[in-house]
């Protein structure tokens, strides 16, 4: 059985010391080992950003795609080979700006993959511009007078898009994050995890301390019920999206693949590529 260490390679991340993404990486590696995965059973598909480099730092099959496109690539991988565990990952700009269309549609489509967003509320790789989840008034190179737009609350968007698994955590809480990722990978369907992963270089507002002060564990909320979407949405709105834990989990939902008759009998890549002669003749006869 593979351990945490088997998911490590010898490549040194180029993240700034103290960057939140280190812990997200560690939590993924721990969760994979804890779920009994082998490195060759895992595919990590990422977008572009500081966070997108993740696929190169985990020992597994990895695909570092283009900015905003980790989700469609990841869904294609899963559709081709259902035996693989597929994790898609990237930043807040990647998932909520350029890739937002894919995010909403992946949520509603419900293909069985896990999507982990490293949300630092800023563009790290391009050196500090505003992001869709930057708070109102957040000052960056592109918002010298402070951001004038309302921030996106990722978990609210996820719920509104028909998600079947929604969670939020912070990279400093590796223990909780690991447990959430484990459950997300077990979930049959699309699982969405927004992880606040502080950018120590370009975001001096949403720091580790800030999250310690402002995030509310769902366990602390009376009558919080993560099996009830309405309850979840109410609390998300009441607490301005600053919750921590599993926000919503629909255990009954069927994944996209489960809804296609016979699809999961065998992974697509194992299916016969050559048509039977009878099938060929039958199909060709339709052109007469």
């Amino acid at each position: 059985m593979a351990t945490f260490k088997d998911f490590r390679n010898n490549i040194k991340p180029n993240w700034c010391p103290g960057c939140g993404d280190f812990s997200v990486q560690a939590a993924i590696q721990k969760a994979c080992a804890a779920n009994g995965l082998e490195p060759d059973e895992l595919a990590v598909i990422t977008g572009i950003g500081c966070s997108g480099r993740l696929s190169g730092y985990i020992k597994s099959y990895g695909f570092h795609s283009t900015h905003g496109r980790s989700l469609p690539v990841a869904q294609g991988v899963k559709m081709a080979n259902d035996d693989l565990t597929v994790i898609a990952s990237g930043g807040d700009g990647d998932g909520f700006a350029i890739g937002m269309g894919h995010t909403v549609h992946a949520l509603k489509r419900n293909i069985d993959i896990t999507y982990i967003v490293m949300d630092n509320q800023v563009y790290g790789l391009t050196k500090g511009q505003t992001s869709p989840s930057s708070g109102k008034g957040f000052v960056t190179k592109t918002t010298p007078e402070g951001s004038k737009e309302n921030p996106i609350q990722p978990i609210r968007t996820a719920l509104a898009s028909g998600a079947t698994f929604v969670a939020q955590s912070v990279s400093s809480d590796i223990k909780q994050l690991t447990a959430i990722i484990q459950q997300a990978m077990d979930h049959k369907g699309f699982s969405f995890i927004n992880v606040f992963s502080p950018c120590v270089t370009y975001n001096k507002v949403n720091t580790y301390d800030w999250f310690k002060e402002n995030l509310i564990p769902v366990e602390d909320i009376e009558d919080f019920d993560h099996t009830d979407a309405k309850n979840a949405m109410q609390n998300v709105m009441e607490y301005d999206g600053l919750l921590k834990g599993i926000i919503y989990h629909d255990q009954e939902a069927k994944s996209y693949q489960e809804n296609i008759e016979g699809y999961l009998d065998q992974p697509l890549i194992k299916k016969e590529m050559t048509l039977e002669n009878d099938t060929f003749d039958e199909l060709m006869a339709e052109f007469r």
Partner: protein
Amino acid sequence: MNEQLSWKVGGQQGEGIESTGEIFSTTLNRMGYHLYSYRHFSSRIKGGHTNNNVRISTKEVRAVSDNINILVAFDQQTIDLNSHELVQDGIILADSKFSPEKDENLNVQLVSIPFTETAKALGSQLMKNMVAIGASARLMNLELQPFKDMIYTMFIRKGQEIVDANHEALIQGYQLMDDEMVRIKGDFEMLPSDSEPRLFLIGNDAISFGALNAGVRFMAAYPITPASEIMEYMINNLPKVGGTVIQTEDEIAAVTMAIGSNYAGARSFTSSAGPGLSLMMESIGLSGMTETPLVIVDTMRGGPSTGLPTKQEQSDLMQMIYGTHGDIPKIVLAPSDVEDAFYTTIEAFNLAEYYQVPVIMLSDLQMSLGKQSSAPFDVSRVEINRGKTITEDIEDQADEYFERYGDEEDGISHRPIPGIKGGIHHVTGVEHSPTGTPNESPENRQVQMDKRMRKLKDFTMEEPFKVQGNVDSDLLILSFLSVNGVAREAAERIDADVTTVNLKQIHPFPIDALRPYLDGAKEILVIEQNYSAQLQSVLKMNYPGHDRIRSHVKYDGTPFKPEEIETHINSILKIKEVM
């Protein structure tokens, strides 16, 4: 008796014009005639003039006709818009319901027949198309039995009563026309066919069936004219072989999903038209850079922007050859006709996987949607070649990253698919080392870029073009896709040594194979459907310094007619004589 006739049916869109043309032509195909059809339609769904032109012949036809012999009109607009295309003494079969009138200046015959009234009396005016088909059959002196058989197979699901009513409509149409025959001038009778079994299909079906045979089991696509039939065919047929289609949120998702699925080892593709291809440009580079096989079908229509969404054009060529930023190896193919579209599609998937490159399969609206006869496809010619794809565990691989981008002599590295033991590697659109780790060093960059570009350096497919005629010629005509058939027909009418070349391998340009023909031609003419003579530019770039290269373009949205090309060729050859 006629070797070939051109029949056209027109009316308001949504009124069953398509099905009239469909039933008529499908029956003729089953009778063994060669057919080539052209649908004129607008972006509206209901209303607006639409027509379906079917050219019927006892020999192979691969082009629309210069004019029409028979016009079946369900409204006055059809007559007003189309009767000028009729040959001298050509005939209009019109529904008496709208008291049809013809232009007195035109030398054509008008026969008014109660299509709607007859159908109504039989129970439903929907059957007016059967009355019209019956009348057409009589005019062309065709046997009725094949039409009856066709009606039976089409309607038996709805019950014998419906079949009987439609049979009756057909027969009454036949008789109504029979009463008119004494007054008809001229000969509209077809010569008998050779009764050979043939397919009758649109290019999009040939491409789709090709994809299915190439082992495609997954497709991701976004609807667009004139590509949607491909996705619809796959939706209907992929489940029969355990596959599926996802209709994505946009074309970027479609192409990247196809990339993901190909990366994971399942042959996958997407299809679209110009607007969708424009959105896919960045991802084509991702496929090129990560060396992930990818096939995209581009069914060209009128551009730019939304352009002429339902009209014929071939103006995506340059973007397909050069599109995406940076340098990547890429293959662009153009099947020579509908039959070839089947085989070339299979080849496209093999090439994509063998060379680990993006392959763009071109079509154009007329090839994609023009229904035409084709010889049956030969299953023995279907072959799947996966190149250096590794689908089984690699036993002796050390516990390290696999060299996915190893610097092989032919530039093509081994490609283990995710999930197998011993194949772990990383792929990225960032410049990378042999194991796929991002690496920006100048030395590595040079090695990897050279490796990628080397893959297609000497690439020529088995049949890079289809040629008819001699190496030495008075005139060589170069064309691609649906223009091929028209160019050929025009060439055959000319009393000179004309060689036609249907270019199939558009990029990399097969200049070495083509050179003898180019050198041997006194004149070269490139015929294409776009404003800026894109194919001519490509030829000039690859075969520089030749002022013999002429161009004939058309960009009004309608397909070339043989006559237009014939006139153009004559003018070129005449210029030569004078000189």
